[in-house]
């Protein structure tokens, strides 16, 4: 069963590369190098600084996701369970949620400078909303019958959160994380591509401005690897923590 899964994963990635190869041959333009040449440059570039950019970007994304969880989950729990506060905050949330947070980049840069913090802040702003809304909706929809059954066992507020609400929303948090990490990388690219000197976004824009297409693709591959690593980590944690969900 396990080897079958691994074979399927490899086949999936191989198909992607085959399609890329065919496209590159058909297009026959230096702007689209073949996967072979892109990977050659990718491995060469890794020791020549790309690894560093990768680490910096990775740390920014990870810090943003953790920060979003730290703020978004408790806040979502609270709004999901306390209707009167939710009624006050909901309009605010719905008014600000759809705004593409990237438009605040100039403001964030003015307020927090050009360093790590402003980038992390911007990514957090985006991921935080997704986690907040998902957590709130999940907390709101926890089965009242389950809560009642635990109350009948003598549970106080704290027990209800610990034994019912918290475990009930964890699968939804993982879903939010999956969606959030994709968005996080997209925002990361944008934040790093402006007034920046490190990170994959910078690396990509720099390569582009030099028309160094194979390097650009090395950067794209690095971003793919970053996203893949994130998804894989989330999947492994999800399987470990929410094994009951797949029965």
């Amino acid at each position: 069963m396990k080897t079958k899964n691994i074979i399927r994963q490899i086949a999936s990635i191989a198909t992607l590369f085959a399609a890329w190869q065919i496209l590159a041959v058909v297009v026959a333009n230096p702007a689209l190098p073949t996967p072979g040449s892109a990977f050659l440059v990718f491995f060469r570039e890794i020791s020549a600084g790309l690894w560093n950019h990768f680490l910096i970007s990775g740390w920014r994304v990870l810090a943003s996701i953790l920060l979003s969880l730290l703020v978004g989950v408790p806040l979502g729990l609270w709004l999901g369970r306390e209707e009167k506060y939710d009624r006050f905050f909901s309009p605010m949330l719905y008014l600000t949620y759809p705004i593409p947070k990237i438009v605040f980049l100039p403001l964030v840069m003015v307020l927090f400078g050009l360093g790590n913090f402003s980038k992390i802040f911007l990514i957090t702003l985006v991921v935080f909303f997704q986690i907040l809304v998902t957590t709130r909706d999940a907390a709101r929809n926890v089965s009242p019958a389950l809560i009642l059954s635990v109350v009948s066992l003598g549970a106080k507020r704290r027990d209800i959160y610990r034994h019912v609400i918290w475990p009930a929303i964890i699968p939804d948090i993982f879903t939010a994380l999956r969606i959030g990490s994709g968005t996080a990388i997209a925002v990361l690219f944008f934040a790093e591509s402006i007034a920046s000197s490190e990170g994959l976004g910078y690396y990509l824009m720099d390569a582009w401005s030099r028309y160094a297409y194979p390097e650009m693709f090395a950067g794209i591959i690095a971003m793919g690897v970053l996203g893949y690593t994130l998804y894989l980590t989330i999947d492994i944690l999800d399987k470990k923590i929410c094994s009951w969900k797949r029965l």
Partner: protein
Amino acid sequence: MTEQDHCVSEGASVTVRDLSFSYKSAEGRVDAIQGITFSIEKGDIYTIIGPSASGKSTLLYILAGLLPFASGEALINGEKPQPGRRATSLILQNYGLLPWKTVWQNVVLGMEIRRLPSSEIHARGEKILLEMGIAGTAKRYPAELSGGQQQRVAIARSLATEPDLLLMDEPFSSLDAYSRESMQEFLQEIQSRRGLTVILVTHGIEEAAFLGRKIIVFAGHPGFVRRIFDNPPAGAPEYRKNDAFFHLCTELRGAMELNREAGKIF
């Protein structure tokens, strides 16, 4: 008071006098039950039967201390129901098992919430799993069990807190006919071994007749007690095949049909 202090060898007595309950809804106040009066003695199974929305579950929630009532009286061993009354246990229709907890974690949940010492939690948990015949399922999740096994886990979780009053809201309604009968006999056995009082709400006429030492027939909306049947042979091994049993079922059906007609008049 420690957990050992309360005696579990004896069930609780329940007295309900002129009890009414109404709740607020979008359409204003809705009366759920009106002027309910009955009393039951310690240590037997009592069944409540009646049409949907006649307030049967409401009564159980009141007895469990989950709904504060405004008028009338409900007493368990002479005291008002409290949400944390240690010796009352409620089993809901869909078992109320937490899907993210294993059988073991579900069974010990009530004891954990009551902050019992872990050695006692362990001892009691193992004993109750054996008694319920589900010791082999301890590490599995509720979703991996059959309906009958899930019901046993729910009963185990309730009994682990050593109640003297067990309230059950249509506990066997989602089981197939065979499992239902064997669970009824199982409940009967548990009850007589432990001597606790059980109040069981059901839709099934045969279930009410087989289990209920007294059968309380609810009617109407808001619900009231239409009739109380006395049923001394309840739970006897061959009772189901007995003429008296069929006779009682017919009488119960009659009382229920009266319900339906009453429904038309309302």
